[in-house]
């Protein structure tokens, strides 16, 4: 595939069996979190009841029925066979989830990456999986783009995590990835390539207010940018001001108060909400 260039060419097989993992799902008042979960064959899923209500977990196609479990207790199940297993709490209508069980598990970035970025992917799987190929689909079907192998230099601090392989790919556009071996295919992993420019921030203080200067590269005049503050009472990132970049692809925001509050600028689409790219996070330093 021309759009994606393989960066790692080492041929390898999984060197050691993957260690079975345990993944926790929180059972809330009326929902499971996360509702959808992907695990490796042999992994254990633990449902922990973090609500004040009694729940159960019934996964008919997995042949599992936990029975009732109360607040602050947990139940678990080992998924030994690949497949997708929907489950429900039969006590609470609409309280559902899915466990996807795969012979390989592919991990990668959860946030959009810049065009041309080198993206690190990692694969968990059993020794019997053999050679593992990374494939990508940008809309015209899967094509091999890399072969996963042990990390160069033995990984961080020279340590190789048993049963884990790595690959780097250069992402030029949004694609769906999967890992494939003789054992089968992993789940699909979508890596979004940001459609927005890189945003550089510079801050100064003027008359007790924080002034944030925004510069976009490549040039993106008239693009939409939004200043967000991470506010405790807003429970996350909150849009406080919006602007269009000028002819020099710059914008300026002035903020009064909020000393010490994390701030960032995002470029957004026409709806002023879909995030295309994000700046680094800085802390406001002015006194209000």
């Amino acid at each position: 595939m021309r759009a994606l260039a393989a960066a790692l060419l080492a041929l390898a097989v999984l060197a050691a069996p993957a260690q079975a993992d345990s993944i926790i799902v929180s059972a809330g008042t009326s929902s499971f979190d996360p509702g959808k979960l992907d695990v490796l064959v042999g992994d254990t899923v633990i449902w922990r009841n973090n609500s004040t209500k009694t729940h159960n977990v019934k996964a008919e196609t997995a042949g599992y029925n936990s029975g009732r479990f109360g607040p602050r207790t947990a139940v678990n199940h080992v998924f030994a066979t690949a497949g997708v297993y929907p489950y429900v709490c039969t006590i609470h209508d609409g309280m559902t989830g899915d466990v996807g069980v795969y012979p390989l598990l592919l991990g990668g970035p959860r946030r959009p990456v810049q065009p041309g970025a080198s993206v690190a992917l990692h694969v968990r799987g059993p020794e019997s999986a053999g050679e593992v190929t990374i494939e990508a689909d940008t809309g015209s079907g899967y094509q091999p783009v890399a072969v996963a192998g042990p990390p160069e230099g033995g990984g961080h601090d020279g340590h190789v995590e048993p049963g884990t392989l790595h690959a780097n790919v250069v992402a030029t556009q949004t694609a769906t990835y999967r890992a494939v071996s003789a054992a089968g295919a992993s789940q699909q992993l979508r890596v979004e390539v940001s459609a927005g420019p890189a945003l550089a921030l510079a801050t100064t203080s003027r008359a007790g207010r924080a002034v944030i200067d925004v510069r976009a590269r490549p040039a993106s005049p008239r693009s939409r940018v939004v200043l967000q503050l991470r506010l405790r009472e807003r429970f996350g990132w909150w849009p406080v001001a919006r602007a269009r970049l000028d002819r020099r692809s710059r914008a300026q925001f002035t903020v009064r108060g909020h000393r010490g509050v994390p701030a960032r600028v995002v470029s957004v689409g026409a709806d002023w909400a879909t995030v295309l790219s994000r700046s680094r996070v800085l802390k406001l330093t002015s006194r209000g």
Partner: protein
Amino acid sequence: MLLAAASATPAEAAVRHEWVAAVPRTWNIVPNGRDGIMGTTYDPAQTVFPTVVYRRFTENWRRPLRNAPVASVDHNMIPGPLLHARVGDRLRIHFKNRDPNAPHSMHFHGVHYRPGSDGSYIPGFSGRGGNVKPGQTFTYRLNAGRDSAGVWPYHDHSPSMHESLAGGLWGALSIRGRRERRPDREFVTVFAAMQDFQTINGRAFVGNTPIYRARVGDRVQWDVLAIGDEHHTFHVHGHRWRTAAGVPEDTRTLGPAESFRVSWREDAPGTWLYHCHVEQHMAKGMIGIYRVSPR
């Protein structure tokens, strides 16, 4: 707001002029992208939609204004302008339809008017006020009678009514008695289903829904309204109020287009929840926080 007649004392009736337009707007129901209590995240594709809202303007729709003070509604646009009057006042609501795609109107609950100012569409009977075409204007002539004291909804009742009500083309009319004292804080709380969410003032989940604020000692008034097809139960944690019969309560039910106001002297500092107590509504976003600071 312009007062054509002097209203220096509460006893003097006034003619109140308001300039309102229906304007297209892109609306985000969950700006922070998450349910802060359950941790569920939402993509803008699920929460952003095009709609039409009421917006307050200066005379002759020259310049847009805030629909209501930040302290009353938190954000702008939904609900529409918070309209105030006193019993005995006459209201002249000058409406302009700036939506190029559909007719709209304003239909008011709780006040007196002739059929021409009803603002609802009856083919062959209603006048222009029930079907204000794109770019056209109409002035509704209303009177606040002795039985008008309280809080009331207003909304589009044109042929576009059903889409408009689902999209937030509604607001609140707050009418006080002739000598009634103004509260220190007035909070407008409108329950309505919107897209796949249950919203308060068009927003869902804590942090997105209005953050109301008061200080200990403040006289606070909650204007509570429901729009849509469902019943809701208004509940504020850590507080109680009394019914007209003197019975204390902390939860009150209201159905489609019903409204009420409750008030109390604030004495409970802290951060409190307020929400609809229909649990499915609460889980779909009909919940917010109320912050009371010490005096």
